[in-house]
């Protein structure tokens, strides 16, 4: 019973904080709320007996990526969004890029619903290879990452490397002129 209460508590925090992220006019508050949301998600991972994933979530997202976000917002000193010039039309009625964004959001909803329907069928697929204690251990995660998902893992690392090289090229061009 306490597990259920804790689940709903952290799930509620995650959902409310995520909703508030897009409701904020000040980007600084958006970032802080996003960190709260990540924290709540990490608590949910701990409830799922996956402490490694929970800690990785905090270290990578809340600890590193959000600090970079914060850094950029502070450097640009982004002003508060001005309510007067805020476009109040429905996203689908706007031109160009906003309409594309709305389309993507719709796709995401469809994908989520599909994934949820599918998850009820194949709930055993994830837990099939062992019980909670073995699945959550770092050893097991590492083994799966370097055997079954080797290609995805290496492809991701190359993708990140490409992004890094791109950033260095862009930054270096600016200073050489």
């Amino acid at each position, binding site marked *: 019973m306490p597990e259920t209460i804790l689940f709903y508590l952290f799930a509620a925090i995650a959902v409310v904080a995520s909703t508030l992220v897009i409701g904020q006019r000040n980007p*600084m508050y958006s970032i802080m709320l996003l960190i709260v949301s990540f924290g709540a998600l990490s608590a949910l991972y701990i409830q799922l007996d996956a402490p490694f994933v929970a*800690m*990785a979530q905090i*270290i990578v997202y*809340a*600890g590193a990526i959000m600090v970079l976000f*914060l850094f950029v917002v*502070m450097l640009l000193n982004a002003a508060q969004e001005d309510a007067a010039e805020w476009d109040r039309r429905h996203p689908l009625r706007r031109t160009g890029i906003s309409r594309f964004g709305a389309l993507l959001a719709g796709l995401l909803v469809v994908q989520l619903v599909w994934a949820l329907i599918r998850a009820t069928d194949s709930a055993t697929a994830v837990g099939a290879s062992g019980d909670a204690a073995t699945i959550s251990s770092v050893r097991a995660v590492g083994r799966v990452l370097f055997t079954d998902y080797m290609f995805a893992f290496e492809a991701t690392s190359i993708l990140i490397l490409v992004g890094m090289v791109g950033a260095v090229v862009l930054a270096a061009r600016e200073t050489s002129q």
Partner: protein
Amino acid sequence: MDQPTLRFVVQLAIIGFTFFMLINASAALVLAERKIMGFMQQRYGPYLVGPHGILQPFADILKLLFKEELRPKDADKWLFTLAPIISVTAAFAAFAAVPWGAETAFGPWTIPFIGWTIGPLLDTPVKLGVADVNVAVLVVFAITSMGVYGIVLAGWSSNSKYSLLGGLRSAAQMISYELAYATALASVIMLAGSLSLREVVDAQKDYWFGFIPRWYLFLQPVGFLIYIIAGVAETNRAPFDFPEAEQELVAGYNTEYSSVRFALFPQAEYINMTTMSAVATDLYLGGWHGPLLERWGLGWVWFLIKVGIILFVYIWVRWTVPRYRYDQLMQFGWKWLFPASVLNLIVTAALVLYFNA
């Protein structure tokens, strides 16, 4: 009291004791810092409050409590209040995953000469430390990395250029040195084969040839050096104290703070120093293992001694080495420290693979 209740009370007492020690560590470090600084500059340091000035931290705290709390007119009200709270909460919370003593049942002790035995207090031993987590290394790393938000938000919400520069520097510095820090940690984790700090400590309890302790310090000298340097940078201490470089930024991120809100920042810094030293003790110096004392169930005294030595080195470095230049800090972090830690990781991995095969 029956055993489960007694056990619960003992656990609570251990948590309370840890908290009490941490609060006192920050007070004691303020005094130690000023006394050691005085010694290195050939003067006495604080001398008037109490014998040899040992009550100076209490006078400092009282003074800060009675100061007026100021907030700049254009400061962001919420984040300005939240920033010091985040700093100090992250500092305290990080220590929760650090074990500081062996398993103990509190007895049985035999009083020398008389021969009386004081029976064990508990049926089954408890672990000394707040929480025994099997990914403790990651927990400490994750929570200490949350502490940077306190400093960055303090810098941004003050709405002052010096504070903002201090906050920006802190964010850049933390991200740069976290890499080397985490890579140094990974080398030790590979040697011990566990992410649990308690298991890492217990892997170091034996001796080579019967007298050299099997500390990871001797297997990972480079890693230890990298850990200490990155730790100094992570806690924003001199020679890496750029977020509050007083010659350039007035007082950096805490320029606009006063009274208790100001006091929380140095307190968080001192507690972070203690956590860094405690984790270094667990990872490299064999934690609570040591000759003699361990036999009487006083292993945690060894732990305190080792943490104290590292903290002394922290203060020693601060009053010996001048501050780097900002570009030197980034060069050192990215071009020397990080490659060195990666090299250390690769060599360690190769050796572990060779000797385990």
